């Protein structure tokens, strides 16, 4: 009886689930990806950020500096060593795209960053795929393959199913058998000994199917050598590991239910910050 009353009271309590429509891609206390806000010309000599980066994802050329956010572990060590304070901790965590190259950002002396080769949003290509029709309408089931992941991604996927993030409400479910899956979610740098297992799982899946790379290690290998996917992933989600809310927003984007383009939003974000 008391339990029943508690349920009734619960109906009137404010809900704890995150409203993903109202989110701007940042997390107030997380480090997020580093934002470069300096003057490229002054950065040619000092290579402190490049040296300290655990995954060596910073490249310094004359008049340009590029950050590969698909390889960034969001450790903020580059922020700490930059004496000129040209790199800042952004708190921006929504690092995912349908195109791997989009996660690489070049900052040059002309503008905040280079947009010259940015012709079409990455989602346009994804929309042409047969898998898109399915996931857009019905959501999807995924089978997760842990291929050398250090369990961070697994913990956070688990968390994304709690009542704060509520992944199932957007129509994304975990399934045990690849035969029931539409998406193969790969985490970890793809260890050599998992190649075979992963390929078997992939070949068992029925069409239409796609691979999503989950976590920085899957996107770029992170600290380790990167293995080979059975097929190029259709979506890349970076983060070490991606936060549960990032996963949900990334899946919503992948399903075409949310308008998000990493390059565009990141440019807006940096401009606002400056």
């Amino acid at each position, binding site marked *: 009886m008391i339990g029943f009353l508690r349920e009734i009271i619960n109906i009137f309590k404010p809900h704890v689930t995150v409203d993903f429509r109202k989110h701007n891609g940042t997390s*107030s206390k997380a480090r997020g990806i580093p934002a470069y806000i300096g003057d490229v010309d002054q950065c040619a000599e000092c290579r402190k950020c490049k040296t300290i980066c*655990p995954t060596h994802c910073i490249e310094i050329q004359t008049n340009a500096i590029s950050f590969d956010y698909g390889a960034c572990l969001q450790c903020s060590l580059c922020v*700490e*060593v930059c004496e000129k304070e040209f790199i800042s901790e952004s708190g921006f965590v929504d690092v995912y795209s349908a195109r791997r190259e989009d996660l690489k950002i070049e900052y040059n002396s002309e503008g905040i960053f280079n947009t010259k080769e940015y012709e079409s949003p990455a989602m346009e290509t994804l929309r042409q795929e047969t898998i898109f029709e399915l996931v857009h309408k019905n959501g999807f089931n995924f089978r997760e*393959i842990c291929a050398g992941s250090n369990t961070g991604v697994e913990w956070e996927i*688990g968390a994304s199913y709690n009542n704060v993030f509520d992944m199932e409400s957007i129509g994304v479910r975990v399934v045990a058998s690849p035969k029931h899956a539409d998406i193969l979610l790969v985490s970890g740098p793809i*260890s050599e000994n998992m190649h075979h297992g992963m390929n078997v799982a992939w070949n068992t899946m029925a069409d239409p199917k796609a691979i999503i790379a989950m976590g920085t290690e899957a996107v770029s290998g992170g600290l380790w050598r990167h293995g080979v996917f059975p097929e190029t992933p259709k979506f890349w989600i970076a983060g070490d590991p991606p936060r549960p809310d990032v996963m949900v927003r990334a899946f919503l984007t992948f399903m075409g239910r949310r308008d998000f383009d990493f390059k565009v939003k990141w440019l807006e974000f940096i401009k606002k910050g400056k």
Partner: protein
Amino acid sequence: MESRRVVTGLFENLKFFHDGKSIFAEMSNADFRQNLNDSSIPISLLRYNYGLTWDEDYSRIDEERYLSTHRMDQLNYLYDSSKGIRGFDYSRLEVPLTNLDYSHAVGPIHAGLIEPGHFRFSVRGEEMRHLTIRLGFQRRNILDACKSKSVFEITNLLSSATMDSSVANSLAIIRAIESKFPSPISSSEELYRLILLETERLAVYVGDLGGIAGDVGFYPLLGVCSTERGFPLGWMELLTGSRFGRFVIMPFQSRFNGKASLEDIQAYLKRFHPWLKNLNKHIERAISSSTLRERMQNVGTVSAEQSWKYGFSGHTARSSLAKIDIRQSEPLYEKLDSQFFQSITSHKLTGDSWSRFLIRYYDIQKSVAIIQAASKEINWSELKRRWKPYQLENLNASHEQITYGVSEAWRGSLLVAFKWGANNRIDKIYYRDPSVLNWLSLELASRGMLIGDFPLLNKSFNHSYAGVDL
């Protein structure tokens, strides 16, 4: 009983002993063959240190002999005089079967969100006769990646071995570095490390309780725990900027989240008590339910005797009342909470799944208490100063050729040792995750249990695959 000790690591000419309270090193010139005959060295450790991979066919071995816990019987099939000792990696496996039994291979991909491994069950009807576990699928060649890297890079690489014990990993690593370069550490720094280590334990144990509840079909607690785990993770993120405390603990001075203000921290600390009260209410409800208790009692018992013999640690050992916990040798724990190592339960802990459920519940209480006690002592503003990459060249190095560091991860006692070469560079690394020794407990505990108990067993131990497959 108290004077017992077990070898917990082997590196170069050092033999590391675990006496329950601490890990200490002794010189030893024993070669592989001598170590093989030394019954104080668990076979798991030998397999980790010297293990080689070859195709295994044990189908001709008598099943009784395969199940024997005698060292000689185990070595009889794990050791081959022409090759060496068989490691943990899977290649090909045949296990002994009688014509009443059925053998079933599970893995490397398991059902659910879990790391890969090869589990070979042999079942008679519903009963598991034996279980043989082979790993190796997670191998990222971490030790190769560490070759000819700087001390700083090695810290980052090695602490990334397992995400769920990032703090414990980095703690053991930096203690090994700090004993090479002895230098005073501020008391706030010590307290900060303790807080992070206990926060990690707290987060994982809350998640584990939910996982265990899920595996026995008690979903209300699974729902509560998977949500409430966010609280310690949020605390970790507030302090460090990362939910898992990645790249935070550094030699001499750890990093601190620049975005965390003193007010934020005080406000969060105030929320600990109501959070715990609410969580306890749900866990107590599960504990007071006789069906849950009976479901878990006498399932997968690991005795204190076994823990000492095979070198188990962490909740695997402590749930059987074996006092194996190296936090006992850290004066800070006793200082902050004189009752910390006292038992707080009237329940009898026997080493079964139920005890492993309970020990996590009690550890949660203790971790919260010690986090709060440490937060009263700590000077937060001292931690907030800007982190600088340390310069080892400017420090006085000790003459020790080999230094080591230990930490009590939530899985058990973790050991890291470095061999130092010229110019204070690291020549050789020894990293021994508690799971190296603990994995055997799952094999032993499964025998004679029902196959339906296996998910519960596996979750109640929660060993690491990535920590063993470096």
